[in-house]
Each structure stands twice: as structure tokens, then as C-alpha cells.
């Protein structure tokens, strides 16, 4: 292991030189953890997440992390993350599909406990019948927790989002957890080019005293809320305490937006802003959307892409502005419920322009050709069923 030196967070995230590597999404996540000055990582096996946490285990063995262990199950892992973060450590874990749901009670309580942890979510089918394929329906379960939910398109995003999340989550005016989601297999097990910061530089350590809710470490008076748990109070006090606490969490979630602008170049990316028809997509569906824009260009069709990087906070204003004149809005997704389409519809006044789909589920691949069918529909083009290049 090279000697790592602490550098300024803004420097590391925005200016440090980068080296291009051809690596898997799992490697990209572990490489980000390596540079994030993480104190402890807690793992529990599940396909396809395991590879990330194997690699994180390896970097702990090399000395990049101070502690690491395999927990008894996800509920235990996520609860221990809460304990470690309350104790002032910087902590990381990752999980997938059924594991996420098993840990969800603990994870959903992180924002309320003001736990600035970073969680990798490498999506997989959650519902019976059993499968391990990369359906991303689990992200919809995260959207009401209060945590920040980012959705990475590719290996580069996985690296950038993960590294930046440690800094964004610990901002005093944010101080809630961040889930960095990406599709299992399609991204975790596939290789792509990733421009990475130098291996010998790391983020500054967590300063747990720069916090709206102090750590529980017997070095500083603990948070008052611990003694005044709403459950101890009369109904009206209980409602009130819990209500204001939730309001503050959701306000914190919205305050993360300015840091998403600063460190991730904004919550959306727009390709061809003057398009007539838009594909709005997140995660690796955005990659398919990019190819659809290219296919459309080859055929002389004016199609654009809105890639949504931040699902929560959802970029309502940004999306509304870009889509204000869209003739049709195609939302391809890797799940049956269409959670992104719902978010888009709720955000814009012209929601009848939204075409919910194409959707593939069960972890199926999302061929660009399926998106193109919707594009042809949007332009009123009748095509023979013939494949296009």
C-alpha cells in the first residue's frame, strides 16, 4: 500500500490529476472507498454486491481501512454501521436487493439518527421467484427514507458518486446518509474506463464534531433528543418532536442539491437540449438512452437525453425546464413499477407527454431497439419489424 496523504476534499474531487483505468463497477466502488479515508466497513454477502465488499476487505487487509468485518446479516450490518457512525467513525457498506430490504429497517432509520454513512446499492431482483438479475425496483423503497439517493450510469459514475458522497453526506447542513445505486452485473461486473484520482491521496478524515447532531463518544455532551425521545412524551409532544425532526431531514435532503451541483456537475445531464423528443433515464438505462440518441441521429430524428443522477432530492425544477417543450418523454426503466416515470410525471405540468416505458424487469437487458420503438411511435413513424443499426 502506498503512503496516502490527506488532501483537501475540493482538490481531490475537482482538481486532482486523474488516471484512466479499465475496471469493473465493483472495482470502481472499492477504489473510491480506498481514497475516502474510511474508518470501518461492514460486509454481508449477497450476489452481486459481494465483489465490492470482497475488494473493500482486501483494501482493509492492505491497510487502507482501520476495521472491517463480515456481519451476521444485513440488519446487523446496517445497525452496526449506525453504531460506528454515531461513535464518530466514517463507515461504508454495500448491499443488493433482498439484502437491502432485510437491512431496510435500520437503513430507513439512519436519516433520523443523522447517520452520514455511504451505502452502495448494487441492484438485483427482490421479489419471488428467486433470481439474482439486475432489476432495480429496490431503489423505489429508498425514495421515502429521507436519504440522498444517487443513481450511477457507469463505472465512472460509481467512482465519482461514491467518493463525493462521503463529503456531501458529512456536510453540516446535510448530515444524512447517501445511497449510491447502480445496476448489478450490468455495471458491477462489466468493465469500463474510469478516470481515477491518485492512489496516494485521500480525503480528510471525518470530523464528527462538525455536526448538527454530535457523536456519542463521551467527549462532548450528547444530543438532547436521546433523552427526549418522542415515545416518552404525551401524544402532542410526540407528534411535534417527530414532525419537526422529519421536516429537518427532508430539508437536509434538499440542501444536498447544492453539493450535487458542486461535486457532480448537477443532478441531471442533458444531451441535445433542443430535441423534440426526450429520453429521461437514470442508471444504466441512461447509457441505453445515450445510444438511442445516437441511433436517432443516424436516422435524422431529433431526440435528446436527460440523465437523472440524483433521484432524491429529485431535480424538479431542472427536469421541468428541459422538458417544457418536449413532444414526447420516453422513460426507459429496469423495473416493472416505473418509479422514475412517476417522479417525472409528478415533476412536470405536461405529464401526459410522458410515455412510461419501455420497461424491462426481472433483470432483463434493455435493448436500445426497444427505446427506438417508442421513438418511432413518438414521431408517428411506422416501421416494419426490422432491426436498425
Amino acid at each position, binding site marked *: 500500500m502506498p503512503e496516502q496523504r490527506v488532501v483537501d476534499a475540493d482538490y481531490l474531487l475537482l482538481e486532482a490529476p486523474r488516471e484512466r483505468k479499465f475496471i469493473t463497477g465493483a472495482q470502481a466502488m472499492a477504489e473510491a472507498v480506498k481514497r475516502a479515508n474510511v474508518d470501518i466497513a461492514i460486509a454481508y454477502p449477497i450476489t452481486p454486491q459481494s465483489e465490492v465488499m470482497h475488494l473493500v476487505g482486501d483494501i482493509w487487509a492492505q491497510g487502507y481501512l482501520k476495521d472491517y468485518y463480515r456481519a451476521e446479516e444485513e440488519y446487523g450490518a446496517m445497525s*452496526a454501521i449506525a453504531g460506528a457512525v*454515531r461513535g*464518530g467513525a466514517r463507515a461504508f457498506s454495500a448491499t443488493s436487493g433482498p439484502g437491502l430490504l432485510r437491512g431496510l429497517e435500520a437503513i430507513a432509520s439512519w436519516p433520523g439518527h443523522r447517520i452520514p454513512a455511504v451505502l452502495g446499492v448494487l441492484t438485483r431482483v427482490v421479489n419471488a421467484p428467486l433470481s439474482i438479475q439486475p432489476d432495480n425496483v429496490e431503489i423505489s423503497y429508498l425514495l421515502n427514507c429521507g436519504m440522498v439517493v444517487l443513481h450511477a450510469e457507469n463505472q465512472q459514475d460509481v467512482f465519482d458518486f461514491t467518493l463525493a458522497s462521503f463529503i456531501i453526506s458529512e456536510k453540516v447542513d446535510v448530515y444524512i446518509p447517501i445511497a449510491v445505486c447502480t445496476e448489478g452485473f450490468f455495471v458491477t461486473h462489466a468493465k469500463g474506463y474510469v478516470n481515477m484520482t491518485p492512489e496516494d491521496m485521500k480525503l480528510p478524515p471525518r470530523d464528527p464534531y462538525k455536526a448538527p447532531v454530535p457523536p456519542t463518544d463521551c467527549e462532548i455532551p*450528547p444530543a438532547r433528543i436521546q433523552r427526549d425521545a418522542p415515545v416518552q412524551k404525551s401524544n402532542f409532544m410526540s407528534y411535534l418532536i417527530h414532525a419537526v425532526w422529519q421536516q429537518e431531514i427532508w430539508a437536509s435532503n434538499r440542501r444536498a442539491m447544492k453539493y450535487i451541483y458542486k461535486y457532480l456537475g448537477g443532478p441531471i445531464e442533458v444531451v441535445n437540449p433542443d430535441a423534440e423528443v426526450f429520453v429521461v433515464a437514470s442508471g444504466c438505462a441512461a447509457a441505453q438512452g445515450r445510444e438511442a440518441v445516437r441511433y436517432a441521429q443516424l436516422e435524422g430524428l431529433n431526440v435528446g437525453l436527460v440523465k437523472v443522477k440524483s433521484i432524491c432530492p429529485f431535480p424538479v425544477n431542472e427536469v421541468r425546464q428541459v422538458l417544457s417543450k418536449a413532444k414526447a418523454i420516453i422513460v426507459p426503466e429496469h423495473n416493472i413499477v416505473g418509479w422514475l416515470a412517476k417522479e417525472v410525471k409528478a415533476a412536470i405540468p405536461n405529464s401526459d407527454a410522458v410515455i412510461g416505458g419501455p420497461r424491462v424487469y426481472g433483470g432483463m437487458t434493455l435493448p436500445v431497439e426497444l427505446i427506438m420503438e417508442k421513438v418511432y411511435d413518438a414521431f408517428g413513424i411506422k416501421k416494419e419489424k426490422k432491426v436498425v443499426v
Partner: protein
Amino acid sequence: MGLEYVRISPGFEKYMPKDYVDLVQYGQFGKEIDVQQLGQFKELVEEHPMCAGCFMAYFVRVFYASLPKPEDTIVIGTAGCARLALSQAAVPFIYGNYGDTNAVASGLKRALSIRFPDKEKDVVVIAGDGGLIDIGFGMTMHSWFRREKFTTIMVDNEVYGNTGGQESGMSPRGVQLKMAPKGKQFDKINAVELAKVAGCVYVAKLAPTNPKRIAKTVRRAILAARHFGPTFIHAYTSCNIEYSIPTEKVLEDARKREKQDFGFYEWMTDEVKEFFEELERKPEEVKA
């Protein structure tokens, strides 16, 4: 830092609540307290909303008076009766989700060890039979298998008291409770033996009939956890409501159970035994 964070910044004494000022001036912090002095000093927990005559509340009170270093102790609890008092104490308290205590404590203890390798910070879980042996069973066991260095105290009232009197794994066989309308169908779980095989270095079982013995047991469990590994105390803390024990008969009931199945029991590894033999020869060092 410990005592430092407890102390009042000079000049602020008159602005702090009287309770707090009393706690610093006449409380346990930085002092050697004998549990038999209860009532003669400002206690860490005084007001609590537990039922009148609750023996668990009494146990919790004695527990706080027994802490070797309250200023460097963090208590972790979970849903249930005990946390009603635990959250009112002048010791940092973490209240997570139901049954998560031993996982949270694992993460917390490790974080504290990373951040303060040269300081002693005690982590103590106090949770009920439901939290530790039913819903949290896996996490309780695995924290012991992993040899996490904190103390687990089970305040066993043999019932889910807080949710209205349902059967727990620690209820005695045959007892009729909610969710066991025909009586409990299987035996009370042997938590002490589980703790021993799972890797605890110090295990004790008691009925709280003798405050001095409670204090010694708690102190030993915390010190052994600080230096060696997981420790466990199984305490009988009856539910006078669900088991219809008249308030004035609570102690009598505890004495009866002590004779029956809660006789004082203490087990420790040879290493821990040696440690206490050495330590208790020179009692002035226990505080150090």
C-alpha cells in the same frame, strides 16, 4: 475526555438547570460510590416513567450506581420497559431499532476503539428478553461469537411488558400470556449457557435481592468486557403488572425465584478470574 464534558464551564453554573449542577457537584462523576450509599448522593437516574413497584426500575437504578466510570460509559437499549428509565439517565444513551442493540454496540465500540485507542470507553447494552433473545437473537449471539468487547445485560421480565403482555422466549413453560392463550409450549431459553458457549468471558445470573452483589456483578462484567471480551448478565426483573405480583410482594417474589431458578451464578474464564483476584486485592485500583 470523560469528566471534562460533564463539567460545567466556569461562569455558567447559575444558568444550568439545578438538576445538572447537583449532578456535577453531588453526583457519582469522578467519585468512588458504594451502592449502599444510594439516597445519599445525586443519582444518575432519578425520575422515570416506569410502573410503580417495578423491579426492573430498581435494577436499573442500582445498575447506574454501579458504573465504574459513568462519564465514559455509553448505554444502548432497545424498545421495551428498561429504556423508559435508561433514556432518562445522565449517561449517553442510544436507542435504535428493536433488537439491534448488540449490532449497534459492535459498531460503536469499534468506532471508539479506532478513534480513542488509548482511552477506556465502556459500552453496555441493557435490553429485555424480547430484544436480546427473540428478535435480536442473531445479533446478540454473533456479537459474542465475534468477541466484541462490551457488556450485555438482559433484564428478563419473562414477558413483552411494553406491548401489553405477550409471551417471550424467556417466559416459563406453561405460563398463559397473550399470544400464548394455551400457555407457553416450550421451556424458558437457557441464556446463560448460550452465552458461555458463544464466547462470553464473564457470565452471571441473578435475582436482584442484594444490591451489593448487583453492584459487584455489574462492575465485574464491565471491567472484564473492557479488557477481555463479551460479558453477560442475566437478571430476573419481574413484571409485577403482567404477572400480577402485588407491589409489596415484588421482593418476596424475587427471593422465591432466587431459590427456584435464579440462584446467584457466576462463571468466568481463568484469565478473567486471575484479573479480578489481582484487582480486588487492591480495591483502590478498580477505579483507575
